[in-house]
């Protein structure tokens, strides 16, 4: 291992820029003549728009124009789309309702944009936005996914507000296994709705160049090429070659910045219409209302076991709330990113998972850190823990008895797990967590009047998203390969162009580590370029823990090509045959001689091309590669959470956290640890603190940080983090991915610990002090009666 190569805890190169305030985010970019947009949003969850009167607003100082949904429709701007087709059990396609970027006829959630005011300054735009008079006919709304079927029909295309009724697995085999089971564990689960809250709010800046008839969009995107594709091919604003999308520094995404949103479409449309750059930056309260939320499942799940605690079958029925419109990838999250992970780390012969997706009058729901996999893990890990308790088997032991032990393993829900060692991570985590000493600690807590509990989560996820052929067969509208280009400059420094996009992950460091190691050059001599469709030819962006597993695999291929070409150049320089050239530590040598050429000399020679004639070798040193993975990757591990519950107040304190993860090859352990920490924080947030609440009228009760609880440093303990390693066989580096693991593992670990502490399974998320106290009140009379 070199000091800056794979496996080295290299300090993040990008951090100097970020911590000294020199990052360039969308809102930092200023274009000459720029105007500011403010959206007029629906205050009602559901209403018909009778009329929009913009006359008063247009006369306000500084106003350039006020545009409405009807104008957008008149200009034939296309709808936003969901790019993953899901078919119902009966074979019918999902019911995708039209989603205009500005509502013209009806509004369907509080925050649905109706009009946009474009003015010289934000303050002027805001003043004018208050003068836009929208005449609404308020209609009844439905917000609870469990009641969506019987609620007022939101879209003409979707009777019963049902988008699809989908299923995966063999229901007959599952029924038979349940009939033969010795024990059945049943749980009703609500996977709470979450609001992402990336620290940088969404923003868009659009500019039209009449000279070239080209549009440029700067936006807060995790995948600018996909944004360009959708905006071109579906919304129809401009063909791809006439649209440049730049996602500059982006301050966190967690999934919420994957999607193509109305605001960026409107800014592009307005910029061309008005011939002025148009910028919009969300306020935090707008982010609450209008960013895609996450999770929001209502589930009934059942686990069948034999007398020895061997799992026989799993049956799951979920209602997934997709909100008022189908967001870009929303259909895939509760289906192929959810049901396919229901086997967990276990050898489960039969699984049947039904998912009904519904519309409600709430902001769209789409992928959020983990996307489907946290929901699946929560179902499986809660069931397993509860089954163990009900059967009087130690929860770790029950898991051991059911672990998959040989690979490859075909689950009954599509996935083929290719590598893993679940016993190893459980064992190591139990040691690090000192599970042996738990009972002693529990007694000590009891002496202080505290209830102590311990919970496991042996999670699995499918990352490295994704083999194109596989996702294509499941309905995905795009392939999920990745591209990389390596440009060697004449002096030997290197630019890497990647189709992935970093918004906190540290690609500028990790991708450079790979180049530094493979080419034997200093890491300072490598820079990473991403997020600009004019520079990077194409790429699928960053989500689903894919950038290292897929993006760096493409980079490996491109580096290999560069080395091959450089060897040819070196052969000419050293007057040797190509087969005799060896490349190591940044030096080309001729086997069996002392002749050598340094990396920089070869790079220079590739460009000056004095040493070779044009026919057999082209000048230059630049290679591109596309990489399509052969399988998903399967990061897995064991998290153990230990809590103390204050029986008097119901407040939970997390006193110990142990995470042992198998991410395959680790490129930068410091960055990986940071990803684990952040993921756990988000998972703990879901388990203890966060929950989006709409009232029955569809008003967002948790519309600000005064009511929506984000995790803070004081909510978290110091984490004990460990690794085990089985390499992924499906990519050249053996990487599995680490970005979502914490958020996937954590919720079940926390709830398993709390329920262990209080002796009741009746705890929903977020398990706030008030919730846990109420659960304690429900168990205590029962206990007293039993005593």
């Amino acid at each position, binding site marked *: 291992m070199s000091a800056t190569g794979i496996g080295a805890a290299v300090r993040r190169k990008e951090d100097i820029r970020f911590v000294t305030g020199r990052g360039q985010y969308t809102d930092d970019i200023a274009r000459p003549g720029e105007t500011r947009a403010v959206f007029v949003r629906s205050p009602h969850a559901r209403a018909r728009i009778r009329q929009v009167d913009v006359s008063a607003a247009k006369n306000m100082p500084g106003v350039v124009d006020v545009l409405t949904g009807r104008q957008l429709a008149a200009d034939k701007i296309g709808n936003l789309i969901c790019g993953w087709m899901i078919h119902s059990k009966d074979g019918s396609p999902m019911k995708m309702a039209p989603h205009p970027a500005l509502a013209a006829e009806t509004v369907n959630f509080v925050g649905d944009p109706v009009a946009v005011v474009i003015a010289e300054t934000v*303050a002027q735009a805001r003043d004018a936005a208050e003068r836009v008079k929208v005449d609404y006919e308020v209609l009844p709304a439905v917000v609870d996914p469990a009641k969506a079927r019987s609620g007022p029909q939101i879209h003409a295309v979707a009777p019963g507000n049902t988008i699809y009724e989908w299923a995966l697995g063999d229901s007959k085999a599952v029924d038979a296994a349940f009939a033969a089971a010795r024990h059945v564990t049943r749980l009703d689960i609500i996977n709470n709705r979450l609001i992402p809250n990336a620290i940088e709010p969404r923003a868009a800046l659009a500019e039209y160049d009449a000279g070239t008839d080209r549009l440029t969009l700067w936006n807060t995107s995790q995948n600018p090429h996909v944004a360009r594709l959708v905006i071109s091919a579906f919304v129809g604003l401009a063909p791809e070659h006439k649209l440049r999308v730049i996602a500059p520094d982006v301050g966190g995404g967690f999934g919420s910045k994957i999607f193509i949103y109305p605001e960026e479409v409107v800014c592009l449309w307005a910029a061309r219409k008005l011939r002025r750059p148009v910028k919009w930056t969300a306020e935090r309260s707008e982010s609450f209302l209008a960013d895609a939320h996450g999770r929001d499942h209502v589930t009934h799940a059942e686990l069948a076991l034999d007398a020895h605690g061997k799992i026989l079958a799993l049956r799951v029925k979920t209602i997934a709330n997709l909100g008022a419109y189908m967001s870009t990838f929303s259909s895939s999250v509760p289906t192929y990113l959810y049901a396919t992970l229901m086997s967990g780390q276990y050898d489960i012969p039969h699984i049947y998972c039904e998912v009904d997706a519904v519309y409600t009058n709430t902001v769209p729901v789409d992928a959020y850190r983990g996307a489907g996999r946290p929901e699946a893990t929560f179902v499986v890990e809660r069931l397993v823990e509860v089954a163990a308790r009900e059967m009087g088997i130690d929860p770790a032991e029950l898991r051991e008895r059911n672990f998959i032990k040989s690979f490859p393993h075909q689950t009954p829900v599509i996935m083929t797990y290719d590598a893993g060692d679940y016993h190893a991570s459980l064992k190591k985590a139990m040691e690090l967590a000192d599970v042996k000493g738990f009972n002693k600690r529990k007694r000590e807590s009891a002496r202080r009047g505290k209830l102590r509990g311990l919970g496991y989560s042996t999670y699995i996820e499918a990352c490295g998203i994704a083999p194109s052929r596989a996702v294509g067969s499941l309905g995905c509208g795009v392939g999920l390969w990745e591209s990389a280009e390596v440009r060697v400059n004449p002096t030997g420094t290197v630019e890497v162009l990647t189709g992935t996009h970093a918004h906190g992950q540290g690609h500028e460091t990790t991708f450079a580590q790979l180049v530094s190691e493979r080419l034997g050059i200093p890491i300072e001599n490598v820079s990473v370029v991403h997020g600009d469709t004019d520079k990077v030819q194409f790429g699928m962006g960053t989500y689903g823990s894919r950038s290292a597993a897929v993006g760096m695999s493409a980079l490996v291929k491109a580096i290999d090509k560069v080395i091959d070409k450089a060897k040819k150049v070196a052969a000419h320089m050293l007057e040797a045959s190509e087969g005799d050239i060896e490349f190591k530590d940044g030096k080309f040598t001729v086997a069996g001689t002392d002749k050598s050429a340094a990396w920089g000399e070869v790079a220079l020679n590739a460009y000056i091309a004095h040493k070779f004639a044009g026919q057999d070798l082209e000048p230059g040193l630049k290679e591109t590669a596309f990489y399509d993975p052969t399988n998903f990757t399967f990061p897995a591990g064991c998290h153990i959470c230990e809590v103390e519950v204050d029986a008097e*107040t119901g407040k939970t304190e997390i006193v110990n956290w142990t995470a042992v993860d198998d991410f395959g090859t680790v490129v930068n352990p410091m960055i990986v640890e940071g990803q684990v920490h952040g993921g756990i924080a988000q998972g703990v947030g879901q388990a203890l*603190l966060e*929950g989006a609440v709409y009232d029955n009228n569809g008003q967002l009760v*948790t519309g600000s940080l*005064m009511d929506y*609880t984000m995790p803070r440093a004081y909510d978290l303990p110091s984490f004990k983090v460990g690794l085990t390693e089985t390499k992924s066989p499906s990519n050249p580096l053996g990487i599995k991915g680490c970005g979502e693991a914490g958020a996937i593992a954590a919720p079940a670990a926390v709830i398993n610990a709390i329920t262990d502490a209080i002796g009741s399974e009746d705890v929903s998320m977020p398990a*706030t*002090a*008030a919730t846990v106290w109420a659960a304690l009140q429900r168990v205590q009379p029962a206990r007293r009666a039993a005593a």
Partner: protein
Amino acid sequence: MYDFAFHRPTTVRQAAGLLARNPEAKLLAGGHSLLPVMKQRLASPSALIDLSLVEGLAGVEQKGRSIVIGAMTRHADVANSRVLQEVMPGLAMVPASIGDPQVRNRGTIGGSLANNDPNADYPAAVLGLGATIITNKRRIAADDFFTGLFSTALEEGEIITKVSFPIAKKAAYEKFKHPASGFALVGVFVSKRGSEIRVAVTGAGANGVFRVKSFEDALKKRFAAKSLEGMSIPATGLNSDIHGSAEYRAHLVGVLARRAVAKATA
């Protein structure tokens, strides 16, 4: 935010004069309650009268058997006050529990009391110690000051200049933080000064801060946590929202009162 005029008087008199001439004006202290609602466009004063240049409004002093705190004294300065740590650390617990360092470095006692947020911390201390609010016009007893949600006995044009707290031998504050905002979901301040015993509760009441007579009576027999064993208050009239039912808040009042007394007698 809408446009407003900005005034920076240097005396209380000037400030009062400006208020009298601008009925739509608002005093500006730390700005940590007022500015957020202005930014959300929920308040639109025609003018702000900034008190930060007014002399003599800040400081914590012992005057005989009282602690006198100037209206413009920042939460951090009260929390860290040497005299207060010496003579009545229980009172210092209150500003120390407010918000985060930024809020504590800006927010003031006068602003907090004038605002009377039902979840604010200071009202519990003021009522729980039987303090006196001193304005440019009069002295108002704590028991008469807090009149309901975000409302006080302050009249138009009245400016809080200081607050006088009698020094209690035993005093403590116990706060259960609202998980999101960090304000008091419930906060209980207890004090014992000679035979005067006070228990004041913030956060729980639908009408803001209130005293708990039954607890005070129980503590009169013996000022000890044990005296409150098993006690709580009726849930009727308490706040109920997504962060806690009225029953939960009622229960917390009992728990926190016991813990506060235990702290005060430790």
